Structure formats: structure tokens, C-alpha cells
């Protein structure tokens, strides 16, 4: 790895010691959910990492963000140029499309994420809309194609995605130079990451170097084959053609337990705080219900006071089991649009959309 004049390789690359390594290369690391429990904002070193290709080396001296395509004035911006735009921030819960893939039955190929391919960070930088306007984009029809500095080997398709211009021009969509106050770490897209709040994580392109305005959705593998969800329910294990799928965009409503751990031992008569997080993409969480009796009865959990438009809410439910037994506790979030978590997952060939009611088994002993 070069580290001389003109090169700046961000410290902190490599494998964070406390994450679950799903893949060493490309870098795909999952956060153990007990570690998410500690704070509303996920510390950078605990935030899950999803990469499709090898992590690129970044030479800051020659780094530029190119903005071209259907624009009046193509741009080539340095980080200093970006610093002159108005600075904004968004607290955003990012979740990988495939979070929970390991639970689909029958199993599907892909990174076998369980519950921890989700995290919340304070992203700061500039409004994408401000940059697009200075390039002369005024219409909201069409698409914005985003490419990072990561490059594939051999015939592997490059990881390139696009989002509709309407979302790109939304005031909350940003080009982030900082994650929780620090320069965006290399694993998370140093030095610049597109942040598309409320949408599945793959829309938020890492190591961003090229934005292209187009009248069409990008025609490559990662738009036309991958990251697509069925438009109808499909039989588990069956195939489905691209014509019956659409790009996965906004996240669903979902909740997860962060404490206690699944199979946790608990003493009868002791007070246990059941807690976790709930999120709903572009919508807000309206309510989280908790059951401690396998879903026979439900009670409303208390929502935490930390909140932001695209960020998860903490939920808490105190419980004192007075009798021994093996209890199945469940959490079910409902959002402000009335969407709620299903009891059974909608199986799909790529293993997306896992948002079933979360469950942990709690073993109460005398």
C-alpha cells in the first residue's frame, strides 16, 4: 500500500476487530446486535460494512468528483471545492438490502447477513441538489448514475447504481465527507459517500467519484439484475424474471431486539429491560408492540427521545417474569403510514425484504 507524498490512506481500514466477518475481501462485516445496543448513534468502528469489490486506495492529491452527462456545465470538484457549498447533516439509518438473508428458507445465495447489517450514523457534507444545480440540472425527470472508485477484476460488472433525479434533488440527499464527525472511514467510502436517506444501503454509493445525469436508469448488472424485488408474492424456491421485479428503493418498517440476547438466561423475579431499535425508511415509527408470550398478547413499548427523520427509534419494554420457563419475546413496529411487520417473510430469490416480527428466546430460571 502506497503511503507517500500525495497519498492519504485513511486509518482504520481493514477488519474491525469486533465485527462479524462475513467476507474478508470484498470487505463485508456485520455488527453483532448486542453492540448496537449501546447507543442511538452507531460508532464508526461498529457500523456494518458492505462492499461489492475490493476496497480502493484513494489518492487525495488527484481525487476529483466528476459531474457530467445531461448537465449545462460539467464539473470536476476537489474536496476543497465541495467545502465551499453549504454544509448540512443528516442522521441516517442505513440497512443492507440483504440484512436477514440468512433466515430465508430455502436458503438463497449472497452474503448471509443475520440481524446486524444495519446501523445509524450522523453523516455531514453538502446537499447533492446544490451540486447538481451548480452543474445546471433543473429538471427532475431522469436518473442520476453514481460510480465509486472501486473497480472490478476480470469480467465482473462494476458496481454502478442509479437513483431517480427526484430523489437525488431532494434536500435530504447528501454527499457526505464526514461520518459521526470524522472523515468518512475507508471502509465506509472515503473520502466521499452518497447518502440516500431512507433507501436500502446500496443506493448510498461509497468512494464516490462520478455522477452522471441520464434520461434512463443505469443499464448495468447492479440495477437490472441485482437489487430488484418482486412485484408479486413468489413461491419459496422458485425463479422470477426481471420483468416481474423492480429496483429496491425505500426500506420497509422493521424492528430488532438488541437486548437481551437470544437464548439469554434470566432469573425469575428479576427486572429485564427488553429493548431494541425500530426504523421505517422515509416514514416515522408510530408504535412498537412487544409480546412476551409468543404473540398471544401485545403491549406498547416506550419509544426513545432521540429521533431524526431517517433514523431509527429506540424502544424499551420493562418486564419482570415471575415464573420460570422458556419465553419467546417478540417486537413488531408500525410506521406512520400504517405499515407493520409481517409474521412470515416474503421469500424472494435474492433474499431481500427480511422484516418479519423479531423474536428472541429468553430462558427464565428460578
Amino acid at each position, binding site marked *: 500500500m502506497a503511503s507517500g507524498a500525495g497519498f492519504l490512506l485513511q486509518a482504520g481500514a481493514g477488519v474491525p476487530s469486533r465485527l462479524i466477518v462475513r467476507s474478508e475481501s470484498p470487505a463485508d462485516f456485520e455488527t453483532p446486535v448486542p453492540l448496537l445496543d449501546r447507543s442511538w448513534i452507531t460508532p464508526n468502528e461498529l457500523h456494518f460494512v458492505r462492499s461489492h469489490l475490493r476496497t480502493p486506495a484513494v489518492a487525495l492529491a488527484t481525487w476529483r468528483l466528476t459531474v457530467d452527462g445531461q448537465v449545462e456545465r460539467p464539473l470536476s470538484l476537489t474536496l476543497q471545492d465541495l467545502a465551499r457549498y453549504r454544509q448540512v447533516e443528516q442522521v441516517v439509518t442505513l440497512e443492507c438490502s440483504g440484512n436477514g438473508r440468512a433466515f430465508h428458507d430455502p*436458503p438463497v445465495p449472497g*452474503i448471509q447477513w443475520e440481524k446486524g447489517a444495519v446501523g445509524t450514523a450522523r453523516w455531514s457534507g453538502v446537499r447533492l441538489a446544490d451540486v447538481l444545480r451548480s452543474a445546471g440540472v433543473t429538471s427532475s425527470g431522469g436518473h442520476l448514475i453514481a460510480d465509486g472508485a472501486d473497480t472490478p477484476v476480470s469480467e465482473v460488472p462494476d458496481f454502478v447504481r442509479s437513483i431517480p433525479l427526484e430523489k437525488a434533488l431532494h434536500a435530504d440527499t447528501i454527499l457526505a465527507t464526514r461520518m459521526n464527525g470524522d472523515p468518512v472511514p475507508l471502509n465506509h467510502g472515503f473520502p466521499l459517500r452518497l447518502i440516500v436517506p431512507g433507501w436500502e444501503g446500496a443506493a448510498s454509493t461509497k468512494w464516490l467519484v462520478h455522477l452522471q445525469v441520464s434520461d434512463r436508469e443505469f443499464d448495468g448488472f447492479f440495477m437490472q439484475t441485482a437489487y430488484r424485488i418482486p412485484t408479486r408474492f413468489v413461491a419459496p424456491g422458485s425463479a422470477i424474471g426481471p420483468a416481474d421485479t423492480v429496483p429496491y428503493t425505500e426500506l420497509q418498517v422493521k424492528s430488532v431486539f438488541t437486548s437481551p440476547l437470544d437464548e*439469554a438466561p434470566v432469573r425469575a423475579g428479576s427486572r429485564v429491560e427488553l429493548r431494541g431499535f425500530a426504523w421505517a425508511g422515509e416514514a416515522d415509527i408510530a408504535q412498537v408492540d412487544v409480546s412476551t408470550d409468543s404473540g398471544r398478547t401485545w403491549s406498547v413499548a416506550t419509544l426513545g427521545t432521540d429521533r431524526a427523520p431517517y433514523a431509527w427509534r429506540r424502544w424499551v419494554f420493562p418486564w419482570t417474569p415471575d415464573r420460570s420457563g422458556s419465553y419467546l419475546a417478540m417486537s413488531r413496529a408500525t410506521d406512520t403510514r400504517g405499515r407493520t411487520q409481517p409474521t412470515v417473510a416474503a421469500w424472494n430469490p435474492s433474499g431481500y425484504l427480511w422484516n418479519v416480527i423479531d423474536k428472541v428466546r429468553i430462558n427464565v430460571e428460578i
Partner: protein
Amino acid sequence: MLRSSLVVLLTLLGRMQPSHPGADIMATYCTVCHGPSLIAQQRLDRTGWTRELDKMLRWGARLPEDQKAPLLDYLALTFQPSRPAGNTARYLPDGAGAEVARTACLSCHDVRVLTQPLRTRDDWTRTVDRMIEWGAPVPAQSTSQLIDYLSAHFSR
């Protein structure tokens, strides 16, 4: 962490099919571009593996035609749907002994075997001794550290 995960993984791979020619083919043609755990975490039948392998061939994998069948045999046998999900890299609480436990216990067990049922320190001592008899990879100088760790984190 990376090293220990690789140890677990290699231990798993080694146990499953120590002499299958497909393991060498995988090491020669697959893991030159991506890590082995990308493969080892999958749970696919032969049709699923054929689909994945065809994708990799389209994407430039340089696998000779005559190596395809033995590789598919190996993948479909070793990384099949009946395996439990996600047991190669389960979370363990931090602490001295966590790395020993990861290699010694999680090479063969799901982490849930540690959390259920509640055990006393004596139970853990007996269990660890039995597992060592049965071949658990615990260095002699690490036995008491492992028992300490398990007793501290997974006990009454």
C-alpha cells in the same frame, strides 16, 4: 480476528472434506479473487451452486472445463442447504479467552450451545475436559483461561 476467523474456517473446511479434489480447485480458481468465507457461508444445492458458478464463469473465472464437475461436487456436498445458517462467525462477548473459545467451540458448535442451558463453573470444567478429549483445539496453556471465560460469561 481475521486470523482467528480463517483458522475457524480452515478448520471447518479441513474437517468437512480433507481430501476432496474440489477443495484444491476452489483454492486455485475461486479464492484468488475473493475470500473463502464468501463461499463457506453459502447453503446451496447443486442447482444453486451451478447458477453461482456460471455467473463467476461469465465474470471471468478461469476454471478449466474439466474442473467444473469436481468443484460443483465439492461445493454442493460441503456447503449444502441443510447446514445451519451463520455458525462460522458467531458473536462472543469480549474478554480474555474469547479468541480461544471462538476457535475451540465455534469450529464445531453454534454459539447457542454456550448459552443454553445455564452451567456452573464445575459444569464448564467437565464440559471443556470432555471436549478436549473429543478433539477440541484447545492449547494446554489456554484450558484454564477458556474455563474462566465460559464461567464468567455463560454461567448461573
